[in-house]
């Protein structure tokens, strides 16, 4: 009964979205207020329908309803409740429902928070979002129905991959999808603007909060995925330039460029074409990721196994939305008149440079990801494009980006002179140089970590310099505190976000200095690494709710004092017939002590120890970046929120 209800709810959502799309677009075209007014309630209805559907699916998982094929394939009665719940989206069909759920949430949010938007714009935005939903709901109902039943019911589920039964991984998809699907909102704004034929400062202001929100979530989602890989996969790697990882990075890069570009549209009414294009591109990259993961053209640990027929459907959707968007762009963008004039050396100029570098980085990542596939198709050659390529090709683009990132926020609009700006950054430059020299002195000729430390110091100190400059901390210190309190939150947000990137780079540089040791240890033996001593106390059996295995008990000492006890394990899952290794990690502010247990022999076990300096900062930095985005978002000037209720008496209608 419940699955049928869910199935019906999906179909209902499809109908409601279709209506929302038609009424929104037609109403806006005819300036028909009644039709346009139908769009927000329809969005609310769609949201309710999809929530119902998702709830039904989740219910089937929680109750382990083995008449639902999806539950049988992906769940098991022995799974802990949390993972039954999160298993709802741990498979192709369920994750598509999550995708559509978030899309419906975005529609609902635009309906609720977008009341101050001009009605035509809001109607068009809701309509475009609805039309995207129509496509994906059709895909779900047509090819990936999560509510397909089997009869007679299976005795039990076939379990989920035990690697996926993990809190980090459980929450990685929702965050990531909030980012991916959030790009649909900026896409809808871009399409609406193209249809209207008008991109102006107001549009820039309205787009920005949505761009910020989706970017922040995407940052968190990517970071969570990377952190999960680090602690779960067992060798301390956290980014592999895997095609699916790249597919999440591409919308992030486009989204970052969009974020900055929208500022220029808002403040200076320039870069309109770029910004609209970036909004289209960000969602396009998000859809490309969806295609790559679910069509089977890629082999990747992330890829859901799928058949090419589904791939064709997604390809059609991809071409429809991306191709349609670009076609509209080619047709209508010519009509957008550029207005703002600015000198090349100005904040606008810096943001143009920012756009250029981010788009170039995105181009390299995109080409690098797609090249092997197209080389196989066209040249019949199998080549690999792996981390060495990406690291080599992106480094020369990242360096100017980091350098410019610090300078840009301090530059005035319209026209700037470089020297005064650089003067304000002298201590950031000094800090960078000091970090570089310090690293070289202490660690020897390790050039990349040294450059990383320099970049981190440069960015963090530059963010501080930005804030100090805005509150005139050094020139007029008396009133600095008052100015700080009055400083718009968007300014704080930007500084925090830029500093956050510096923090992440700090972590990356630290990881560049990581050390490891591989030792066969017997109980009682010790090994030392990075100033710590590791003593193997015992090897013993261990068990959990759906696994059993072996565990090594390691006491970690520093200067004779016990710091912690680490218990790396090897786990065996009978249901999935898999074994995994569980790393044991002790995190301090300065480093991660990361231990893994290998094979046992001769009465001892192979233990691998890593000393990863500053590793936690990689993901903390991403959290700081997202925090910066959140701070900016909380700035009332940035949000769509209106000229407050105190106005509006005898006003000319919009």
């Amino acid at each position: 009964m419940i699955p049928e209800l869910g199935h019906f709810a999906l179909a209902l959502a499809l109908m409601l979205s279709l209506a929302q799309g038609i009424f929104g677009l037609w109403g806006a075209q005819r300036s028909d207020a009644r039709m346009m007014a139908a769009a927000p309630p329809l969005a609310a209805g769609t949201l309710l329908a999809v929530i119902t559907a998702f709830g039904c699916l989740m219910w089937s998982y929680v109750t382990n309803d083995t008449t639902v094929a999806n539950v049988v394939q992906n769940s098991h009665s022995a799974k802990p409740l949390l993972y039954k719940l999160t298993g709802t989206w741990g498979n192709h069909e369920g994750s598509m429902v999550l995708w559509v759920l978030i899309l419906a949430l975005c529609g609902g949010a635009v309906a609720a928070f977008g009341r101050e938007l001009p009605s035509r714009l809001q109607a068009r935005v809701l309509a475009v979002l609805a039309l995207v939903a129509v496509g994906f709901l059709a895909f779900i109902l047509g090819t990936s129905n999560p509510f397909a039943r089997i009869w007679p019911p299976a005795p039990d589920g076939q379990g989920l991959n035990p690697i996926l039964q993990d809190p980090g991984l459980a929450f990685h998809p929702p965050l990531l999808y909030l980012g991916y699907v959030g790009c649909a909102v900026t896409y809808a704004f871009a399409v609406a603007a193209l249809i209207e034929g008008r991109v102006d400062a107001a549009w820039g202001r309205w787009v920005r909060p949505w761009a910020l929100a989706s970017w922040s979530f995407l940052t968190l989602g990517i970071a969570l995925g990377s952190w999960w890989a680090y602690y779960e996969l067992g060798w301390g790697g956290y980014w592999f330039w895997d095609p699916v990882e790249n597919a999440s990075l591409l919308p992030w890069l486009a989204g970052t460029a969009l974020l900055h570009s929208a500022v220029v549209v808002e403040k200076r009414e320039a870069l309109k074409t770029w910004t609209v294009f970036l909004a289209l591109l960000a969602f396009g990259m998000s859809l490309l990721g969806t295609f790559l993961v679910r069509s089977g053209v890629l082999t990747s640990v992330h890829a859901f196994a799928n058949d090419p027929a589904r791939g064709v459907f997604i390809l059609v959707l991809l071409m429809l939305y991306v191709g349609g968007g670009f076609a509209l762009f080619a047709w209508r963008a010519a009509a957008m008149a550029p207005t703002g004039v600015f000198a090349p050396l100005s904040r606008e100029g810096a943001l143009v440079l920012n756009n250029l570098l981010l788009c170039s980085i995105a181009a390299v990542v995109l080409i690098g990801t797609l090249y092997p596939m197209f080389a196989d198709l066209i040249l019949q050659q199998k080549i690999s494009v792996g981390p060495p390529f990406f690291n080599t090709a992106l480094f020369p683009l990242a360096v100017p980006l980091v350098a410019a990132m610090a300078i840009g926020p301090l530059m005035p609009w319209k026209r700037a002179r470089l020297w005064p700006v650089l003067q304000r950054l002298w201590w950031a430059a000094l800090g960078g140089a000091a970090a570089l020299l310090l690293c070289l002195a202490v660690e020897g000729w390790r050039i990349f970590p040294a450059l990383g430390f320099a970049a981190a110091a440069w960015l963090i100190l530059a963010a501080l310099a930005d804030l100090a400059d805005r509150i005139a901390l050094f020139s007029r210190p008396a009133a600095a505190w008052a100015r700080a309190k009055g400083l718009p939150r968007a300014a704080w947000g930007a500084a925090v976000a830029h500093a956050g990137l510096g923090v992440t780079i700090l972590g990356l540089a630290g990881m560049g200095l990581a050390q490891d040791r591989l030792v066969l240890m017997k109980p009682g033996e010790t090994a030392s690494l990075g100033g710590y001593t590791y003593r193997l106390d015992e090897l013993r059996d261990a068990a959990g709710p759906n696994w059993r295995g072996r565990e090594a008990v390691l006491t970690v000492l520093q200067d004779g004092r016990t710091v912690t006890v680490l218990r790396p394990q090897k786990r065996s899952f009978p249901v999935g017939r898999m074994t995994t290794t569980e790393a044991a990690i002790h995190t301090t502010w300065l480093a991660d002590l990361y231990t893994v247990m290998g094979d046992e022999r001769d009465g001892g076990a192979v233990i691998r120890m890593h000393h990863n300096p500053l590793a936690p900062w990689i993901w903390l930095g991403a959290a700081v970046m997202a925090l910066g985005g959140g701070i900016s978002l909380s700035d009332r000037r940035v949000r769509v929120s209106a000229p407050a209720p105190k106005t509006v008496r005898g006003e000319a209608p919009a």
Partner: protein
Amino acid sequence: MTPWPMLLPEGVDRGSAAPVEAPPRSPWRRRALLLVPLGLAAGAGAGFYAMLRGMQTGDYDPKGLPSALLGKPPPDFALPPLEGSDRPALTAAELRSPARPVLVNFFASWCLPCVVEHPMLTRLARAGVPIMGVAYKDRPEDAAAFLRQHGNPFARIGLDLPGRVAIDWGVYGVPETYLIDRRGIIRWRWAGPLTEDMVSRELEPLLRRHAA
């Protein structure tokens, strides 16, 4: 800092009566530029479609890997015989210029798909195709037991316990099968079990072509 010469100087004063007239720049160039994203997307879409079709027909295989030794002779090697199999040892000399095209099959007793493909090998051997076997990373007792249980289609068998010779061939898993023509050149490599469909579609035509 002076703006670039091509930019208007900061002299677009407010209140200036006549805006600057200029010969309009070619609108077609801008149009062409704006069409580039669409063009690229269309191209990529066509490529993806070709990939999807190719996956269905088997032309495009994201998981397959061509052998680096195609068109070259096999590497030099000499493997010991497999005890208990009643077959002579396998060395590179036997593959130098065989009387007719030869298959070399890498197998192991611990490999499940090898069991699946074994009847196919037996069938080919009975049809007169000479098949050489290499026991990859297998203990002699286990490999011999495997052959006793499932049949022994091999004319010669080499035992590659450390797996080094396999690496010289570019083997990355078992089972793998190579076709060597009468001049001793590797013409074809299949990674995975030999299936009915694949044998009739690819292998048999090749055997016929190189038999002459």
